[in-house]
């Protein structure tokens, strides 16, 4: 009995030690975000204090409305949402269709073609950038959303095909065969049997596509020129160009860009987790 007690005591101390380490680490990682939020609510004068004050006094909520008045963030927001919706729809449809074929249909050269899909994940996108830009320029698509949307209707990204295929492989093949005996076409099986069972992976990929489009900087920088077409990422960069000394306003604008992602994360946590677990499978 005594040995039991001393063992639990030892375990408790060890657990306490780990909580301290974990908390120090968590605090270190949280500091930049706290600093961001704190600066975003300060007066201009208070941002220039050393050592810095963590609690703003007074709390200036108007920094946010000032930032939104200065630049048309609401327009950037809707532009981004529009790109996300059209790009994600294309990615979900064409990637799942291709993944369905790779996972559940037999056709010649299926394995080598799938290897080709996988190998494009490792292709640095820069090597295709310039000709792609020139094609879009020739088509007159520069300064439209099309370069950011149309490519996703052609396969929807190799990694998404991979994720869909991983998921489809876990669904029993007997379902397809039963539907086939009932006379269902392959498309019918994809649309009526497999997709309804795949809501988790659809949600996961939609969430990741949203984040990708929300965060993407390089492509919108190249393709979107006039301010009324900017996305959030480009708009924030434009804001920085105009207000680079007004740190409180810049932090308010940055917070406005980060906050929707955090909200999405807290509502869709389980899709993040499943997506990560599936992409973790890539290492196997």
């Amino acid at each position: 009995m005594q040995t039991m007690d001393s063992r639990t005591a030892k375990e408790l101390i060890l657990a306490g030690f780990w909580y301290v380490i974990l908390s120090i680490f968590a605090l270190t990682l949280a500091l930049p975000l706290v600093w961001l939020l704190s600066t975003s609510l300060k007066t201009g004068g208070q941002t220039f204090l050393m050592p810095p004050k963590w609690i703003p006094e007074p709390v200036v909520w108007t920094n946010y409305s000032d930032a939104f008045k200065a630049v048309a963030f609401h327009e950037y927001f809707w532009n981004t949402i529009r790109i996300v919706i059209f790009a994600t729809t294309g990615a979900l449809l064409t990637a799942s269709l291709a993944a369905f074929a790779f996972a559940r249909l037999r056709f010649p050269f299926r394995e080598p073609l799938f290897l080709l899909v996988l190998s494009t994940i490792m292709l640095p996108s820069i090597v295709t950038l310039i000709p792609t830009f020139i094609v879009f320029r020739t088509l007159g698509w520069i300064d439209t959303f099309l370069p950011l949307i149309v490519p996703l209707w052609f396969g929807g990204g190799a990694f998404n095909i991979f994720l869909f295929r991983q998921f489809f492989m876990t669904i029993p093949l007997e379902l397809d065969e039963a539907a086939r005996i009932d006379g269902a076409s392959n498309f019918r099986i994809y649309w009526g049997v497999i997709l309804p069972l795949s809501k988790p992976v659809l949600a996961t990929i939609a969430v990741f596509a949203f984040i990708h489009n929300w965060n993407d900087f390089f492509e919108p920088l190249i393709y979107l020129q006039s301010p009324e077409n900017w996305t959030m990422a480009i708009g924030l960069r434009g804001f920085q160009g105009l207000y680079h000394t007004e740190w409180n306003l810049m932090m308010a604008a940055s917070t406005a860009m980060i906050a929707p992602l955090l909200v999405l994360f807290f509502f869709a946590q389980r899709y993040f987790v499943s997506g990560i677990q599936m992409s973790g499978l890539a290492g196997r």
Partner: protein
Amino acid sequence: MFAHRRNRRASLLWSEARDGYLFILPWILGFIIFTAGPMLASLYISFTRWEIVTPSVWVGGAQYVKLFNDDRFWLSLYNTSYYVFVGVPLHLFFALLAALAVNMNLRGIHFFRTAYYVPSLTPVVANSILWVWIFHPEWGLANAFLEWIGLEGLYWLQDPRLAKPALIVMSFWSIGGQMVILLAGLKGIPMELYEAAAIDGANWWSRFWRVTLPLLTPALFFNLIIAIIGAFQVFTQAYIMTEGGPNYSTLFYLLYLFRAAFENFRMGYASAMAWVLFIIVLTFTALQFMLSDRWVFYEGDVRR
């Protein structure tokens, strides 16, 4: 009757193959239009001189000769290599530490997982603007911390010797993305192996070296490849935070390429740069796959 059935079977197989190709057709078209075609086109453009508005002129390997004689090209390659070969291993090491930490069986560990993951969600643009402020020499958080522990403040982004390390330090903030992939790898290690090791009397350290690490190598390998390919294309931080300075110390490869293509419209030169980077990345990836036989351990290996 058998012949009839065989015909039916053949037609089923044929329709399956037809639909298979039909369903991957968007991807095949995309591969041709947005990947293979542009790759070949950029190879061709790299052998020309072309400023978009003027007709292109075939110049053979002249762009490559110019490239290899361009000091700034070598500097950008050096800066990028520094970021890749100093930054990526450290980043992966910290991600591994974090993954091991949040894999512990403690109450409330879920909270810490979330806390470590969240910073990696922040958009790189917002991130970059935030960290310019953190690195601000007079009013920034980084120097406030250094002064608090009694050290001198640093000119993080204004000192050519410090700018690259500063960007690497900043990258540690988002180890969460790699951490969760490694965590999934850790979760995939069968408990029986630990139990067997415990019966053999293995302590924590030897369990880590003999069970955890070998079985985690596939996830480490995957992370390493993706991280290296990504780090070779580092752009936004330098574009927003330092504009390639001070004194070109953060002129990364992609930033230099971007300027050549979209600010100076030297499409031939930029395409040559793109192909050189492609070959470098391809070589490294191939090299890693070759070396992976030595250190990456796949579970299937046991059964063979």
